[in-house]
């Protein structure tokens, strides 16, 4: 079966003021039908440019991309009928009402007036917007506007739903509500590609992830695969009053420890495979070495840790 998304060696170089910026630097991807796929990376990693190329808004410098088997460069007009896009910013039609936004979208995609109206009513119900159907879109709250954007992207039943940083700058409650909606869509079989720089979001929603930085895919797999790739099932974070220089080699010699990272002057991150009682052992060791522990935690590894291990940088920087 034709995969909804197939990408080979995709590259985009922007030139500005004589400088070349490689926004996307050779990406290969394949998203299968019904999959919830995530592009995780910090701001400026190339996620939006990648989505731009897949949604025909950005022309690749090199490489190829297919949407439902259609070449997005050779035949963008046809590729567009298979995609639904929720952009970062509110792009609702301010001149039209809530319901009209959905109806006209359907008609842009060749639906008859009656089909578009029926589909719009169903979506208004599904996205709890029915009582605002005649409202001007400027009167909607941020959460409602976003639900309408998602509903609009679904009117023409796209093969793939793209969401570009849908929860950036959104309050936590609205974010959770959107997660709920996306989970339901995924459960109903919708193929989804989402970009985010929130690792919790990627972890909570995506079946498979590509971690992206500087336009390159650094790692690809399920969140579990990526996390277990660290070679540890526990990450112990310890913060000391002074730099624990003398302590570091002693900790590294403990059994069960995969590796230890310094983060800043006074924090250690200990990656361990079998952490039973390890935190206590380290604290005892520290007490003996007269290194005062001011904070300690033990957690399963996060995608944050995966990103840190891959790039040496924090995702939030």
């Amino acid at each position, binding site marked *: *079966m*034709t995969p909804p998304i197939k990408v080979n060696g995709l590259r985009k170089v*922007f030139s500005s003021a004589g400088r070349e910026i490689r926004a996307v630097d050779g990406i290969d991807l394949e998203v299968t*039908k019904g999959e919830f796929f995530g592009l995780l990376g910090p701001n400026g990693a190339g996620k939006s440019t990648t989505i*731009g190329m897949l*949604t*025909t*808004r*950005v*022309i690749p410098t090199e490489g190829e991309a297919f949407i*439902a*088997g*259609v070449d997005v460069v050779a*035949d*963008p*007009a*046809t590729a*567009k*009928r*298979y*995609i639904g*896009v929720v*952009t970062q*910013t*509110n*792009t*609702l*039609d*301010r*001149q*039209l009402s809530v319901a*009209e936004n959905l109806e*006209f979208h*359907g*008609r*842009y*995609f*060749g*639906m008859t007036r009656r*089909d578009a109206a029926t589909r719009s009513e169903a979506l208004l119900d599904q996205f709890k917007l029915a009582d605002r159907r005649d409202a001007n879109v400027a009167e909607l709250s941020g959460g409602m506007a976003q639900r309408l954007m998602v509903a*609009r992207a679904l009117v*023409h*039943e796209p*093969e793939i739903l793209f969401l570009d940083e849908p929860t950036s700058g959104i309050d936590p409650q609205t974010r959770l509500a959107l997660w709920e909606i996306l989970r339901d869509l995924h459960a109903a079989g919708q193929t989804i590609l989402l970009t985010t720089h929130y690792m919790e979001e990627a972890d909570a929603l995506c079946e498979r992830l590509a971690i992206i930085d500087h336009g390159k895919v650094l790692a690809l797999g399920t969140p579990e695969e990526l996390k277990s790739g660290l070679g540890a099932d526990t990450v112990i974070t310890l913060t000391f009053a002074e730099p624990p220089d003398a302590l570091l080699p002693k900790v590294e010699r403990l059994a069960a420890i995969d590796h230890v990272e310094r983060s800043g002057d006074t924090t250690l991150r200990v990656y361990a495979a079998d952490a039973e009682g390890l935190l206590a052992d380290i604290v005892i060791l520290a007490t003996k070495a007269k290194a005062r522990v001011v904070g300690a935690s033990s957690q399963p590894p996060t995608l944050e840790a995966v990103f840190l291990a891959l790039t040496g940088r924090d995702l939030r920087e």
Partner: protein
Amino acid sequence: MTSTTLPATTRAGGSTLARQAFVALLLRDVRVLRKNLRQFVLRTVMQPLLFTFVFAYVFPKIGQGIGGAGGGRGPSFSTVLVPGLIAVAIIFQGIQAVALPLVQEFSFTKEIEDRVLAPMPVKLVGFGKVVNGAMQAMLAAFVVFPIVLVVHAKGQEPDVNIANPLLFVLVLVLAAFLGASLGLLIGTAVAPQQVPLIFSIIVLPMTLLGCIYFPWSTLDPVPWLKYAVLVNPLVYMSEAMRSALTPDVPHMDVGVVLLAMVGVTALMLTQALRKFRQRVVV
């Protein structure tokens, strides 16, 4: 292709889908125009109403020279104004209906990002804006026409004579597309903070030097200006309207003005569509 999984709505061929999308875009514009009809009429009516009122009514009443009948010979000023004001109304719509909304859609509302995701070539989205602008321009001409015919002082009736209705329709359609193409060109080239400049740098010189208030041939005493204004597309629109509506007033050769309008429209439209695509697809 995975045609079995596709919804019925997307099974149509590419060109059929593009045509349907194009029609739907126009229907959307019509819906929006219907909602804003009062605003449309107001913005269309005010300028010609005030112009004819001051120049064809007040001026003759107070004996002010330029409103007079030119010493009893030649056309009345109201006759000169009819084709000119209709031409202005048309070019204004190009800016009001195409350029100003487009500047917004590119900047504040970013709506254009959604509109170009319709399953059609990007340039066709831009062309839809031109067709919508042209329709509104023609509508504006019909709104303005009775006003410029009716508003004048006693004895200042404009002498309008549509000898060739076909020529009038042709001029109207051409002028409407010229105005809307100019609108698209401006809309794709201007940043939101430059909008006030549209009026002082483009609209004002174009209208004052667009042979609205005087036939082109009367510029004989200022030869350099007579040829300089030929870069102004509004000159051809006014002169073409003159040949269609008030053929007795001296005007440029019909063939020449029509050719000039076709040429200018084609040039502006191709430039505007190219620029439109550049701004949408990077």
